[in-house]
């Protein structure tokens, strides 16, 4: 974990597994982003500590959401 990874990362949080999967499938197919999906905001928070550039896609209704 020395040099920060410069690949743009999409961070997707939703409590619906089917939503996460369908978004991940689409973005992986059509974009260059690295796609990270989380069904729990806590896990997502943990993950963003190691990444520098990310674009959050977030279901703001997902329980325990403290991303924003």
């Amino acid at each position: 974990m020395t040099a920060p990874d410069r690949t743009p990362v999409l961070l997707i949080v939703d409590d619906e597994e089917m939503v996460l999967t369908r978004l991940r499938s689409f973005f992986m197919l059509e974009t260059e982003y690295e796609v990270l999906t989380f069904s729990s905001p806590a896990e997502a928070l943990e993950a963003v500590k190691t990444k520098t550039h990310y674009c959050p896609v977030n279901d703001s209704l997902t329980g325990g959401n403290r991303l924003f």
Partner: protein
Amino acid sequence: MEAEETPKTLTELREENQRLRRALEELSILNQIGTVISSTMSLNGIVELIVEESVAQLNVEQGAVMLLQKMTEGDPFRTMARKAYSGSDIVPFRFGQQLTGWMLKNQKPLLINNVKEDDRLGAVSSGDLEIRSLLSVPLRAKGQMVGLLNVFNKQTEEGFTHDDQKLLSIIASQSAQVVENARLYEELQSKSADLQQSERKYRSLMQEAGEAILLADFTSRRIMEVNDEGVRVTGLPLDVIRGRPLSGIIPVDEFADAEAFERLAEAGRLQLSNIKLERRNAEPNYYDVNASLIHYGDHRAVQVICHDVTEREKLASHLRHHAEELENEVHQRTRDLRESQMRLVQQEKMAALGRLVAGVAHEMNTPIGTITSNADTLARSLVKLRGILSLDSCPEEVRNDRLLAQVLTVLDDISRINGLACERIVAIVGSLRNFARLDEAELKTADLHEGLDSTLTLVHHELKNRAVVKKEYGDIQSILCHPNQINQVFMNLLVNASQAVKDKGEITIRTSREGDIVVVQISDNGVGILPDNLQRIFDPGFTTKGVGVGTGLGLSICFKIVQDHGGRIDVESEVGKGSTFTIRLPLRSRPVAEQNQL
């Protein structure tokens, strides 16, 4: 040789002569008695004659006939006639009781020539000393003693002889039956007079009674008497009523035939209620009729009393009428309540279904969105995969692999069909949401064409194999309404239409505008509706579908919904040709939400 007839002595001849003279006298007396009896038949006259003749024939001072009075207490004899001979005063006669007592006890003639010295009649008071001698014989009719024939104070020295007794007995035996007959006849006369008296009393009572009274002969069943009230009640003159059959005046079966009359005779009386009597030139009146069998003079008669109950009947009929009206009102209200209850229940059911459908539609959003999106992603993946396979770096054998080509074809098909399937599902869910609009409590501006299309999507399953739907949409504005309710009307009419048509059915939906009114017509070329049913078709509970098929509420709810929107629904139909339901709705409905608050 036997002696010839012995010559009669002078004494014998004299005696014979006297006997013959007596017999002649007796005959003459009897003859006289018979004449008087046949001419007068008066008991007094007969008795007087008997006494007179007895006194004359027996040469006594006085005579008396005493008749036994039946059923009388105390002295059972009544002295009918006493006669003093040749005008001398009638002697007081105080020992009657002793004499009659003796005669009743002994039932045979009594001859006393010296009353003072004879003790058979007991002690004789000084007042009776005028009676010196007496002869008494019973008067017998049919073996019964009916009285006494007495003579007193023989006016010869020798006093009463046995010949006197014999003569008096003959007079008694000859006259007793006559006296008894005369007595019976007089009794009869007196009874008849009593009867006439009672008839007069009856007539007077009849007249004075406030009720109408008719009297009919039992045998002929014809009217004999009627009182003034009866004349007034029947409205017929007295001479017209008399002689008429009773049943002609009081028209009841009980008076009409002889058999019924016999039953009346057995029961003795008959009571009938509320008999209607027609009156000339007047309203009919009602009477309680009370008939009873009475003796009127020597007739058996039926007395009919008519008690006027017209007022009572009027009141009763008024009350009955009133009660009926109340009953009807209660029925009507109950029916109304039941109808509105049924409608409320049905509306509540529809509302609940609407909520359910809306909830389901909402829940389906995510999975349908996912499938739709995945179908797209799959299609894109296939494009990418084909791109990879066309690269030069792709080995030839991979590119030409037959199995790979088949897999790609399958994936293409699936991707395409999934897409179409998703579109269909999205359309249906959209229709469901549209149909079951949850904003039911509010009036919304809605496009009726949109509502019709949503409804058609939902009843697609019902219609697809039965009928072709032709839409002839005109230029109509959106209207202010409760869209979910209006959609429900469309759905009912479309389902009915689809059930009315057979194969090659056609359902036509026309929309148009008439000023401020929007018209929606739903026609079918189905079996049509019988004219009788056409009038009841919007009645709650009316259905021609089998039990368990229809609730009979559909059209009544349609009617209510359209009515609540200030519109109207009409139906035209011809059996065998089809039916057309026409809905007219104002562009701006009255607010209905308040009206629904019951």
